[in-house]
Each structure stands twice: as structure tokens, then as C-alpha cells.
């Protein structure tokens, strides 16, 4: 997944029944390919925020944004490309962890600053939040252990502050 192909769009919508269905219906009807989608309330209870990642190979970003803007309940739209966005995602994952492989697994957990949430006789549940690409990396490294169950939230994003260089310092040494 390249930065150019997937764009993150943050949409502020009126907090009304059926708004998510309108947005999802629009994606389906216009053939927009959505990579991930997250919905959450905002500090103002009249509005919610939908953050989604769209494959701009399926439709030009301009069309995605303009068609969304036609939805009466959509109040505000921000496109964030990789350079301007601070993006985060949360993953919960259950990995097969036979006793003899546990320490190997815990090494990875430590390197990625993930958290062990619970441990069973032959499984371990781990959580990691961070940049979506780091989560991709972590997931790939866990793959050989055997992934039993996985849940990812989809990314949320905000526009980077002007002086926020610190924000994206690599989290992995």
C-alpha cells in the first residue's frame, strides 16, 4: 500500500440516525473502494466524525470528496495525505504462543512497545496502537507464530500541527 494510492479523509457529519448508511451507501453506489473506516463522537454532541481511507485508484479523490459534500448531513470534509496527517490505529491480536516460543514473541512485543493483555496456556493476546504502517509491520512479524484472531480499528487521523516534528519520531529504535 503506497501513500499515493490511499488517502485519508476526515468527515464531520451531523449526528443523525442513518448518516453512516448514507455515507456507506454513497461509497457502494459510486464504486468507491474503502480501505478502512472509523466512526466516533466529537466534543460537540451534534456531530460525529468519520475517518476513512479510500483507494484513489477506484475513483479520483476529487469525485469522492465532491460526492460526499453533496450529502446534506455532511458538514465538513478534510483530506489528509500522508505528509499532512497524523494517523493512529489500534490492533488487538491473539497469537499462538506455545511455551517454547513465548520469549521470542515477548521480544517483539517489547521492541514494538506493544502490551500483553492476557496469556493462556498456548495463546497470548497483545494490543498495539500506533501508526498504521507500524501495525502492518508488527502483524507481519506475528504471522509466522499463527494468528488466531485479529481486530483492527481502522485509522483515525488529524491534521499535523505546524511544529509537530516530534510527533512522528520513529517509535521503533
Amino acid at each position, binding site marked *: 500500500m503506497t501513500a499515493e494510492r490511499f488517502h485519508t479523509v476526515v468527515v464531520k*457529519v*451531523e449526528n443523525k*440516525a*442513518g448518516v453512516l*448508511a*448514507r455515507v456507506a*451507501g*454513497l461509497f457502494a*453506489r459510486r464504486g468507491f473502494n474503502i480501505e478502512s473506516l472509523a466512526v466516533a463522537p466529537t466534543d460537540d454532541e451534534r456531530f460525529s466524525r468519520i475517518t476513512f481511507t479510500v483507494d484513489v485508484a477506484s475513483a*479520483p479523490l*476529487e*469525485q469522492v470528496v*465532491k*460526492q460526499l*459534500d*453533496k*450529502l*446534506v*448531513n*455532511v*458538514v*465538513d470534509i478534510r483530506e489528509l495525505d500522508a505528509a499532512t496527517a497524523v494517523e493512529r490505529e489500534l490492533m488487538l491480536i491473539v497469537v499462538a504462543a506455545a511455551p517454547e516460543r513465548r520469549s521470542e514473541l515477548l521480544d517483539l512485543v517489547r521492541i514494538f512497545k506493544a502490551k500483553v493483555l492476557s496469556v493462556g496456556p498456548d495463546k497470548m493476546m497483545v494490543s498495539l496502537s500506533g501508526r498504521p504502517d507500524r501495525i502492518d509491520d508488527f502483524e507481519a512479524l506475528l504471522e509466522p507464530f499463527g494468528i488466531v484472531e485479529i481486530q483492527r480499528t481502522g485509522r483515525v487521523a488529524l491534521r499535523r500541527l505546524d511544529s509537530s516534528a516530534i510527533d512522528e519520531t520513529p517509535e521503533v529504535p
Partner: protein
Amino acid sequence: MTTNGGEALIKSLENEGVEVIFGLPGGAILPVYDPILDSSIRHILVRHEQGAGHMAEGYAHATGKPGVAMVTSGPAATNIVTPLCDAYMDSVPMVCITGQVPYAAIGTDAFQECDTTGITMSVTKHNFLVTEAADIPQIIHDAFHIATTGRPGPVLVDIPKDIVDPGNPRSAMEWYEPSGPQLPGYNPVTVPDPALVAEAATLIRAAERPVVYAGGGILKARGAEALRRLVELTDIPTVTTLMARGALPDDHPLCLGMPGMHGNYTAVTAMQEADLLIALGARFDDRVTGRLDGFAPDAKIIHVDIDPAELNKVRPANVGIRGDCRLTIEALVEALGVDVVDQGIDRAPWKQRISGWQERFPLTYEQSAPGEALKPQFVLEKLRDGSPRDTIVASGVGQHQMWTSQFWNFEQPYTWINSGGLGTMGFSIPAAIGAKVGMPDRTVWAVDGDGCFQMTAQELVTATVERIPIKVALINNGYLGMVRQWQEMFYDERFSEVELGRTVPDYVKWAEAMGCEAIRAEAPEEVEPAVAKANEINDRPVVVEFRCDEREMVFPMVPAGKTNSELLVDPSQEDQPR
């Protein structure tokens, strides 16, 4: 003032200036039908809810005011989905009120429950499910605001029975007048950016072979007058799309007529050869462009639309201007200033090429031999010449629609009503009724096909009972003619399921049974008298059945998947140099 949701609904509609509602009652909407008895609003009882929807559309097309339809829940709501989609595709302002099961019963599969807002989400500009009686005045106000501003379109308001039923405590409310729309996410931009207008003016000044591509948006913006000023100032030949017929009068020297799949040779070819297309309220529909990669290959594009999503959707624009068509055209006129003649632009070479095409490739057809069935084009010419000049014409969908658009002479805007985007068979009779209700002093003809007629003819009962004297010219070719034409041309004349038969039903008896005057014309000499007689009758609907030749085909034609340069002309013109 304490009131209930049902009365508040009717009062809200009155406040929006609604004169007429097209509808049909049923269980869920029943409480609203009681206050209608005491209202100044006229209600027209249709025979099928699809009729109500198309009538509302016809009314809106003819008057420019939003059409209103009201029906009950479940099957009535599904029956009106087609007109909603039709209005959505053609940007017709319309408000549709549907009854819904009581709020508490929603989601329980109650009797006549259906997810009306879910079903209609993708065929309306917006829809509302009202949950509290107190929301009704505000939502009705918002619905009319959305339907009539920006790019117009249909808006549906779904209202549960309990909040309009005076016997239910949930319907009690205090009346109030909304102070304005409450739509934080809806702010259509109508005024064009002057910098872009200036850029467009520069392109116009530099063009040698410009064509104005006038679309339905001009009529929606009531911009026909402005269009005329622009094209006269710039001396630019203009095509009027199927949705814009009449936006510039057909007899205007700069009007080239209809482009597209069944457009005339000159309109199609002028666009192909243009170095600048000025698209005004048009959306580069596939029926206009033909194969896109071969469409107007040398043309720069100025594209004006109130809906920014139309800009760059199909064909990238060199200058894309978001704005109301009328305001933008007026701004262009202003920016261009003096006319082209004073700017030293010589349009003569371009116009000479165009008049050459007009001379070599006029619309044509072969007259029928004695004893042969009528030619539909001949019928339309006689109908055109025998009817008042400001006649409103509504058509169905098929060959008869294309012939009407081709052979009618549109002298005024808002006289042509048809289903362009969705292509809905059965549109014409109810649309004509709606138009006649809105414009009672005008002659209104529905030009219908025999296939279309059988889909919505029952509304002639409505027309008779409600005393709406429309006239129907039934082009009876015994076939689903347009489909027959495709099978003849592209499927080796293998006719599959297209024959309707010419004598069953007996249209004269059927029309009479519905209370109409009925006339049948079979020979050329019968056509004129039949038209004259029909035009004299004004106390009831008239149906004139014209028995027409099933072999007749619509030309010119751009076959699907071909470029507009591969236009097939009438067989008699095949040897003309292009």
C-alpha cells in the same frame, strides 16, 4: 397555538405555497387526509402512485415550482420509487410525503411497513424520517429548501402515523413558523468565481470553432433569456440537449437542435469539430458524448454547473465553474463586454461549414406510399403544425420520444417535458396531467408509444374525473419500437419479445371507457382533421390513436460504443459527402 402533527403538516405545505398535491391515501397516511378537506390545497386522486410522482414532476417541469406527491407506506412508497429516481436523474424539484407505520412499530415488520428512507436514499437528493410531531414544520421547510435550491431534486419526508394522528398523544405540539432552514451541511454556491469567469471569457474570445452545449440546467436556473443574450453577443452556434430543448428557440439562426445518439447530423458534427465547447448546465451524458475517448477530440472545455461534482466527472474541463447557470451566463456576458463583431472575430468560416452540414443532412424521412401505414414523423409534423405555438409536449420513452424531440419546433422554454436520464416508459400521460394542472390555459399534448401507454394509461381516468383535459397522441406502431430498432440493426433482425400487436387492446374503446374522446387515424389525409378535432376539445381528455409503420427507424443514430464521428445517417443521405 396547540395543534397536532397532521394539521401542522398541511399548514406547513400551505406556507410553502403548495397549490396542489398528487396522491392516494391509505392506512399510515390516513390522519393527514382529514385536514386536507379543510385546506385550500387541491388534492388530485391518482389511480397509481407512480402517476402521482410523474404528475408532480410534470407540474415542476412546466411551472418551475416544486411538485408535491403524498402517498401511504409500504407498497405505495415502493410504487413511487421510479418517479423519485426519475426526478433525481433529471434534477426535478419535488417533495414526496410518505406515511409510515407508528414510530414504535418501525423495525417490527408491521403491516405495510417498509424501509422507505433506506430504499429511497440513493434516488433522492435527501430524505427525512420524522420522529417527533414538533419537527414537522422545520423538516417540511428544510425539504422544500433542499428540493428547490442548488441542483434541484426530489426530497422525501417519511412520517410515522402516530405523530400525525390527533387521537395519539404523540401528535400534540405547539405550532411555530420556522425562521429558516436548519441545515448546517447544506450551502449551495450559486455565484461564480469572477476569476474563472474571466478565464472562460478569454477562451471564448480565442476560439475559432466554438459551440455552446446547452443542458437542462439552463432551464432549471430559468436562464433561457440569459443564454440567448450570450449566444447572440458571441455569435456562437448552440446545441440544445434532450433536457434543454426550447432553451434557445429551434428557429433561432444559431440553434443547431439536439445533439447525441439521435441528434441531428449538424449538432453532433459541430460538437465533434469544435475547438471550444461551452457546456452550460450539461453533464456529458453518455447519450450525448458517444464513446468518450472519441468525443469532441479537439475541443477545450468550459463547464458551468451548480453541482461541483459534475465538473471533471466525465470530461476534464479547462475552465470549470461552479455556479448557477443563469448567474454565470450573465457574468460571462458582462465579462465579454462588446460583441464579437466589434472584437474583430470572424465567425463566417465556421458558420459556413455548419450551414453546409445543415443543407446536406437535414432531418428527413420517406413519406408513406398510398395504402401504407402512417409515418410517425409525418404525424408529428402535422401535430406540431396544427397545435398552438406555446403547446406543452410531454413524451414517453422510445422512438416516439426521439421523433418528437427531432420534429417538434420548440419556440419557447418549458414546453418540452420528458424523461431523459432514467428513460422511464409511461412518463408522458401523468407528466402531461401534472403540466396541465400547473398551466391550465395551455394546450398540453402527451406523445406516447403503445408500449408506454399500456404502463400508465389508467391516469386518464384521473384526468377525466378531475377535469384535466390533456390530449394524447398515441404513436401505435404495434411494437416496443426502440427495442425493435436495436434488434433490427444490431441483432440481425432477430425480433425477440418486442411485438405488442396493433389491435389488442382496442385503444379507442379503452380511451372511451376512461371517459376520453377517442379518435383513430390510419391514413395520411385523416391526420390533420384528427389533430384539429382534438385541439378543439377542451372539456375532457382526448386520445388520438395513429396507426403507424412499425418498420420506421430513428435516424441519425450513433450506435452504442461508437464515436459520434461514426454517426449513421438516414439511408437516403448515405452518399452525401460528410
